[in-house]
């Protein structure tokens, strides 16, 4: 076992976690191997450093905070159920059922389309798996779209990394593996970045595309110069101009727009702009007033501390409707403490926060309170988001 180097076992050796036989072999190896001895010195230094870690005392107020939560609790045999969470649990379960139904319907449509496509054209090789390597089928809708230098006839194939280009009179449709379709509008440039069973990724350099995806969420991505659109089960359009600025409009379901860790969750009938260097802006409903939208754009592009930013926030708050809670809630993650206080005041007029949500908590960015308030906005609850966004957190048994 240890005729070769023993570097992988050195921490276990130090911590006396090896069997006596293995420990003896490590000892013998270290006697003869300068390289492993050197690594062992490094491990020992790492252990000495890690041993310097001192635990911290928890804040004294933690029990009081916890107790106030327990005060709202109802003692039952075998544990406690938090009364105020019942509605949320019920809603959450209902949402999960609805979500599960929607996913099943979309997957069913996908399977049906995939089967009907295969049976209608049995001579067509499986997409992304033919003799020319991975790629997706392309269908010409109008004009003369090109893949690289080749003109697309009625149908064609787009290989990994190849650019599909449309001029001002051409349009095309890409079959995204077997999970959806993307229509490419005139004056666009788009290519496949990844064609994997679990991850289908396009890059839209400029132009406009319409996506309709029936796969489970989180399998389809579109890179733009300033953000990535993550499909969360939906239909949407995405435009990118020559400056790299993008506009996402969602028509069904949800899309997350993200860059550098900043995210916007955009529901149906809402939009979000993304700008180079700034990433995704604050989402807003398409029917918000022009003044609201322009003020939001000024806020999103102003520098922190600028007077223009404060003015823009004033205008956004003054013109916000109940439906604009989506925007105001997202602003909490994009503002300083003073600004969050003002947003709290306006949002609480539009949609009063739940009992447990306090102004101070929102100002300091308490995640539970932020989630709690989101759940009252009528846009689904945060559990719903988490289910869309990734696998459910594993539960401790």
């Amino acid at each position, binding site marked *: 076992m240890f005729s070769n180097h023993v570097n992988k076992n050195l921490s276990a050796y130090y911590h006396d976690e090896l069997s006596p036989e293995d420990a003896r072999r490590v000892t013998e190896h270290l006697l003869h191997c300068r390289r492993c001895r050197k690594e062992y010195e490094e491990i020992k230094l*790492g252990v000495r450093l890690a041993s*310097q870690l001192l635990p911290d*005392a928890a804040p004294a107020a933690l*029990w009081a905070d916890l107790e106030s939560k327990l005060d709202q609790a109802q003692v039952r045999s075998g544990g406690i159920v938090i009364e105020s969470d019942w509605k949320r649990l019920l809603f959450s379960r209902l949402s999960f059922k609805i979500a599960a139904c929607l996913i099943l319907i979309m997957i069913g449509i996908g399977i049906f389309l995939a089967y009907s496509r295969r049976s209608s054209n049995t001579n067509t090789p499986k997409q992304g798996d033919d003799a020319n390597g991975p790629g997706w089928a392309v269908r010409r809708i109008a004009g003369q779209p090109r893949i690289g230098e080749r003109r697309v006839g009625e149908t064609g194939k787009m290989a990994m990394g190849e650019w599909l280009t449309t001029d001002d009179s051409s349009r095309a449709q890409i079959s995204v593996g077997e999970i959806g379709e993307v229509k490419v509008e005139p004056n666009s440039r788009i290519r496949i970045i990844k064609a994997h069973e679990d991850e289908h990724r396009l890059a839209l350099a400029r132009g406009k595309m319409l996506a309709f995806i029936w796969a489970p969420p989180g399998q389809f991505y579109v890179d733009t110069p300033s953000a990535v659109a993550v499909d969360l089960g939906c239909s949407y359009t995405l435009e990118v101009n020559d400056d790299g600025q993008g506009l996402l409009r969602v028509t069904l379901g949800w899309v997350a727009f993200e860059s550098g860790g900043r995210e916007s969750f955009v529901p149906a009938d809402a939009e979000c702009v993304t700008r180079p260097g700034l990433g995704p802006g604050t989402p807003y409903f398409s029917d918000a007033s022009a003044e609201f939208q322009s003020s939001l754009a000024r806020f999103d592009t102003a520098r922190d501390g600028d007077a223009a930013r404060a003015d823009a926030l004033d205008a956004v708050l003054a013109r916000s409707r109940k439906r604009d809670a989506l925007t105001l809630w997202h602003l909490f993650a994009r503002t300083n403490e003073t600004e969050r206080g003002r947003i709290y005041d306006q949002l609480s007029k539009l949609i009063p926060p739940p009992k447990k949500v306090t102004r101070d908590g929102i100002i300091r*960015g308490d995640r*539970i309170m932020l989630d709690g308030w989101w759940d009252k906005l009528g846009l689904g609850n945060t559990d719903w988001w988490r289910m869309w*966004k990734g696998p459910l957190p594993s539960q401790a048994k």
Partner: protein
Amino acid sequence: MERRAAMSERVSEGRLIKACREGDREAFRQLFESYNDRVWSIALHFTGDEAAARDITQQVFLKLFTSIGQFRHEASFTTWLYRLVVNSCLDEQRRRRRFVSFDFFRSGEREEDLSEEAHREINAMGRDGSHDWRHPEQRSAPEDRYSQLERSAKVKAAVRELKPKLRMAILLKYFEGLSYEEMAQVLGCSMGTIASRLNRGHQELARKLAHLDL
């Protein structure tokens, strides 16, 4: 003698858990007092963010109290508790990906802030004798204590820069003193994986902090 003490500790923990199942608030408080510093320390040094650590600690104890009826003694209580802590930390990490702009809530981690952090801690120790729960070897002359806290702050900052899986392994080993087997149970992986994570964690710490005089 030591074995008897451990057994008596387990018996009293068993009583405490039984009382918690029956909804005894005082038992909850005692269980909280026994473990809150440990949960807090892992949460704080996993996230590097006091607000997030507060959320995690509260979530862990709420989950603990709401699901203690399901605890069947198949694993040890601490293994069960640390699984809750690890899951809550990972949940927080996922949430943080959504809310990176909340990073300004992070406590300062810059090198120049570390002495200040150590200074604050040593002041707190001076005011509050209850901090003497620290290991006797750690109770030493103020200047030694100061440099020890300063080193600890530097190590904590370096630990926060480790990849999450390595960071959690280091925290469970050095804050909680878990064995490889216990860590494997808590993290749901093999002992070989634990050994490998600790190896990488130690090496990264050594490379980052080789200049510290130990």
